[in-house]
């Protein structure tokens, strides 16, 4: 069989769900059970009164697969809304990372200088370490971490992507 290689696309999908037990397991189970990719997934309650949580998923796949992912998500009973931010107009996305660098001397100074360029904050410091807080698009966070590698990078914790559409409209 000759396959016409469908291009792989990256999509950011926002999902509004009931904040109930097992809802995250349902979403994750859907991805693992059907063999879809998850590049990043974040979740937190966003509406306390209506008890709604918002899940932001970054996934990759062919156009047909991404369409399937959205339809399969819509099938889940506690899912209220599925929005493909990548195709539904412009959106902004951010990620937060905590980056621990342990070094002394020149390397320590260099780390601080780069942090300054990236507008990263120092949120913990000892004589031999810093914890930086950096916020930005995924590629910015990637670049920051890469630059810290030779400067004593020891630990990274990232939130994954949160995203929202530009303009006045709500999800």
């Amino acid at each position, binding site marked *: *069989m000759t*396959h016409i290689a469908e291009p792989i696309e990256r999509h950011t999908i926002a999902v509004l769900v009931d904040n109930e037990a*097992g809802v995250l397991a349902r979403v994750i*189970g859907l991805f693992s059970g059907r063999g879809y990719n998850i590049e990043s997934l974040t979740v937190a309650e966003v509406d306390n009164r209506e008890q709604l949580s918002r899940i932001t998923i970054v996934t990759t796949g062919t156009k*047909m697969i991404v369409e*399937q992912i959205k*339809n*399969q998500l819509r099938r889940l*009973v506690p899912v*209220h809304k599925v929005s493909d931010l990548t195709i539904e107009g412009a959106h902004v996305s951010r990620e937060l990372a905590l980056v621990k660098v342990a070094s002394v001397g020149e390397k320590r100074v260099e780390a601080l200088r780069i942090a300054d360029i990236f507008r990263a904050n120092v949120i913990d410091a000892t004589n031999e370490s810093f914890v930086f807080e950096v916020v930005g698009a995924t590629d910015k966070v990637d670049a920051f971490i890469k630059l810290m590698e030779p400067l004593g990078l020891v630990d990274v914790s990232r939130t994954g992507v949160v995203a929202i559409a530009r303009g006045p409209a709500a999800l």
Partner: protein
Amino acid sequence: MAHQDTLNGAEILLKSLVDQGVEVIFGYPGGAVLPIYDELFKQNRLRHILVRHEQAAVHAAEGYARSTGKVGCVLVTSGPGATNTVTGLTDALMDSIPLVCITGQVPTSLIGNDAFQEADITGITRPCTKHNYLVKDVNNLAKTIHEAFHVARSGRPGPVLVDLPKDVVQAKGEYQPPSRIKSKYKPQVKGDLKAIEQAVEMIAKAKRPIVYVGGGVINSGSAACQLLTQFVRMTGFPCTQTLMGLGAFPGSDPLSLGMLGMHGTYEANLAMHGCDLMINIGARFDDRVTGRVNAFSPNSKKIHIDIDPSSINKNVLVDLSVIGDAAHILEDLIKVWKARQVRMDDKAMKAWWAEIEGWRSRNCLHFENSNKIIKPQYALQRLYELTKHKNPYITTEVGQHQMWAAQHFKFEQPNHWMTSGGLGTMGYGLPAAMGVQTAHPDALVIDISGESSFQMNLQEMATLCQHRLPVKVFILNNQYMGMVRQWQELIHGGRYSESHMHTHPDFVKLADAFGAVGLRAESPGDVDDVIKEMMAVDRPVIVDLRTDASENCFPMIMPGMAHNEMVLGPEDRSLDRPGSEEDGMVLV
């Protein structure tokens, strides 16, 4: 309010079930559900059918649901009782059968402690139910049960599980009637009128149209089946049905091409391959239907009508989709068709039908009969001829007998054919027949079976006898797992690895042991007699028909082949072609 507070969880549960129209529960008691069984004992609104294994309870509820269009109901205990339902729930999910399965659970204080008979059943069944719930507060119990029924029957139907910890069913709480529940789950039922108008335009241009009908039409209800029949007869289009769709359109109508797919008819598959417009109503382009996907109906425009948006473009890209309930969409489709006074190209339609009749004249279901040994096809043809005046309900197990039954029985009405299509569950037919007979006590209910499948749930013979359910088990006994043997012969060089069971029980004595009636046919001359005798008996019957062990089920699309590459019979030369494997997709 005061009197409502006097209800305990078990009472609330039973009241909810009654208010949801439940008449029968298929179940099996155990520690965690004893308070519920205690309440069941005190009432007589709900009938309880005591099965012998929880898997059978789910299949029975499936049979009940499929033959009535109502939601089937199951009640089992925690731990092993709950885990035994997994196969049945998966079966119901694959075939879109509405069920509510109530499982007992250890008390909330013990959840997570590896308590006796504890299993995380909501975790285990998350991927094999449409939705599931764990009720932790007795005041949410009624609401949850009502919502479970709503979810099970709405949209694309499916199984819903409700897990009830023992302390919750013992606690006192408030009952809420269904009228007070507002569910947020509201699938789209009405189709987009613009899309329907577009469909009519596409149909009007077609020269070689075909209607491809699936179980969605049967799930939608008898109105959808009537509208489908009206639409097909009005247009004069050929109509083929999937395994799940048999009965949605009258099988004996000349417009029906019978079943399509791997063991479908020659005319149905070639018409699918050669059509220029395919109208899929409530089917899902299953791999057993499409054969090799990249060679599937290559020159047609495709319209897909389905209630589940995730079925659209899943396996096959379509040109137009209409999301909604089949009955609503068919009604609008007919309306628009009539309003526009569409005229098909008569000449093209005549030519198309002439081609189809040419394929039909190959008589693809033909087989070489014998006067020495019972051919399974012969047995089923006789069963059909001798029982059709009784409009029987037919269930099947899985394998050759299932495909032969689908080929040789003609179903005039929906809800009379119950078979495990998606999951292919051996052991489905006997308990499903039990559920059907419970719903239709006076009807003729036949489980067309094989000796291997039958033994997967044969303990249910006891249930049949206890509850006086006169199901007829019609075993085509060829001593082999027939379909496994067939694939081994055709694809694995005749190496019959573990497909032959050297030892079988004496099915006639077995029937006797259960208190049922056992009959045997060993030569073609016995077949009519045992069928007549079977029908005359007002008790459960096992019929053991010794059939030709070497018979294969044809026509057949070999794995990895396309619709126009089907093998018609053992003498067909194309059998020598090897099956292929598609890139990245192993064909099983």
